[in-house]
């Protein structure tokens, strides 16, 4: 089957019939390191509809953040997109010139960074930095509306302060006010936006993002390693392992009927599912070196692996409403 049509199933495309806002096909990103080229992302394909939230989950190094960075074309100097296609609202992002890409950034593709505390310049007052990114803020009403929209009305008179004078939660909401509410992009990329925040603030920020989705209608790719967070916010979830998207399914589906052995193992490792005293389950082995394997990257750690799994990387298959990259998908494992 041709790669471009492989992901054309129910779960990869949007729930509605409209053409997807974002369409990623067979994306591959390679890092040049001292030990040669390391494939960080391989054959990643998914679609995203307007107003939809896709969660990307995976452990550190699984390539989820690299996918996000590739979408903004802001990969580090030693990384390169080696294959694939990224369609955004009819534009081929990978074919754009840098100037064209820059015009999309912020205005049409927004980003909420992972570390709000360090994402504003420490040497310039916060208010002035807001004005760098947003026009029309000299109008006090607009500013009040913007900050009120993220529950930050109280800091309105502190905007001549510097970033270090604000808390992490305030800064993250401030960044959301700029990147989501102010710019109103079509697509918002969120790179673990809540991991550096404490639990109550985390919940506030998630609620805010969901609210914004409903109000502004933005589509979102939300990257995290926290299954609890992702279950609260996503319409669909993509599970990444060693640079591959091993399963993508609607949130309910994924939690109720995980198809990929890795997804199953991941869900079984959630502490909340166990009674006191019962040992927590973990996944044996490590992910180290998995992205160089010829066969399925999860095969060495997989209880259900057969000989074929070590030799050949599975093609993504449709099982119910899920897309699964597993040779034994659909079998009762």
């Amino acid at each position, binding site marked *: 089957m041709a790669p471009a049509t492989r992901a054309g199933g129910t779960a990869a495309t949007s729930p509605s019939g409209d053409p997807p806002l974002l369409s990623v096909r067979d994306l591959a990103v390679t890092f040049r390191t001292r030990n040669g080229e390391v494939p960080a992302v391989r054959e990643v394909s998914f679609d995203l509809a307007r107003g939809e939230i896709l969660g990307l989950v995976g452990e550190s190094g699984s390539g989820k953040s690299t996918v996000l960075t590739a979408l*903004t074309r*802001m990969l580090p100097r030693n990384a390169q997109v080696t294959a694939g296609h990224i369609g955004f609202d009819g534009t081929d992002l990978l074919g754009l010139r840098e100037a064209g890409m*820059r*015009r*999309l*950034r*912020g*205005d049409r593709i*927004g*980003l909420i*960074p*992972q*570390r709000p505390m*360090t*994402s*504003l*310049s*420490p*040497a*310039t*007052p916060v208010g002035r930095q807001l004005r*760098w*990114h947003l026009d029309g803020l000299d109008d006090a009403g607009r500013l009040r509306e913007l900050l009120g929209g993220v529950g930050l009305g109280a800091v309105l008179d502190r905007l001549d302060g*510097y970033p*270090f*004078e604000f808390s992490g939660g305030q800064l993250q909401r401030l*960044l959301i006010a*700029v*990147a989501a509410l102010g*710019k109103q992009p079509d697509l918002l990329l969120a790179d673990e936006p809540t991991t550096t925040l404490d639990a109550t603030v985390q919940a506030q920020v998630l609620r805010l993002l969901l609210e914004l989705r409903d109000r502004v209608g933005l589509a979102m790719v939300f990257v995290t390693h926290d299954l609890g967070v992702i279950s609260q916010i996503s319409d669909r979830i993509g599970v990444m392992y060693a640079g591959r998207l091993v399963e993508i399914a609607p949130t309910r589906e994924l939690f109720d009927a995980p198809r990929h052995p890795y997804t199953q193992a991941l869900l079984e490792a959630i502490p909340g599912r166990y009674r006191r005293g019962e040992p927590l389950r973990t996944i044996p082995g490590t992910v180290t070196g998995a992205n160089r394997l010829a066969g399925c990257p999860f095969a060495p750690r997989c209880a259900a692996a057969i000989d074929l799994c070590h030799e050949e990387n599975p093609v993504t298959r449709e099982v119910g409403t899920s897309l699964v990259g597993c040779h034994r998908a659909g079998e009762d494992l």
Partner: protein
Amino acid sequence: MLRYVGRRVAGLALVLIIVLTLVFFMLRAAPGGPVDAYLGMNPTPEKRAEVEHRFGLDQPLWVQYAKFLGNLASGDLGRSLFSDRPVSGIIAERLPVTLEVSLVAFLFWVVIGLAAGAFAAHRRDSFVDGFIRVISVIALSIPSFWLALVLVVVFGLYVKGVLPSSGWVPFGEDPWNNMRSVVLPAFALGLGAGAIIARTLRASMIETARTDYVSFARAMGMSERVILSRITLRNAIIPTATVIGLMLGTFISGTVLIENVFNVPGIGQTIVSAFRQHDYPLAIACTLITASVFLVANLVVDLLYFVLNPRIRAGFLNGTAR
């Protein structure tokens, strides 16, 4: 803020008094003395006693010291033992020369250093970047007096008539030739400082370019040029300003060598002859001047840091720093 400056200035005065006291006693502890330097070989005891009396050296040391402090407090630096001119007059004549050379060196090399550093960081890993890095290492490795000697030889022997390799023309006499006579000393004086400034700015700009806040600005669609001017330079200048201040200190010791090689009649030249001849009042006055310049330069840098770095400023305003 004002209290801070006041406290710092008081601190400076204390440091100055300590420095001058040390120099006062060290000069007198050093072998030889102004009388020998003044009278030459084998003077008669009567002549010796007469000169000692004239210089006030026949009094007990603590009396000399008390007189010195008293005069200093009333602003009287005394007279040179040798030329018998008021020391303040000599300083007033020599200091502008040193200041002119230093200022020209400072402005020229700060501009060159900042421009080269910013350019190298902007075109990181390009040929120009490599070129600037290699040149700056070479510039750092060259001792300024050696460079000065080479310049004297080159412009004195081989490339005649382009720039004067020695001597000094006062600005009031002939502005054009004054500017020409500044060029070589200023060049030699600041080369190393320029190289350090360039390297520091380059390193801190590259560091800044890797920060989250530059990534976020880029993700918001800000152009590279605007990122450079509003964010990268603004943050990278903070560590660079510290280095620039430290470089001012090297200028003070640098002028001693440079002025003697180029025969420039500034403080650096005066200080050498004053110490050699044990001209106590003149030597003390030169020390006072150079130490003051050094201390004031440091104070200015600290205050500049206060302006550039909002964290430090906030620390002062809310009282967490004192």
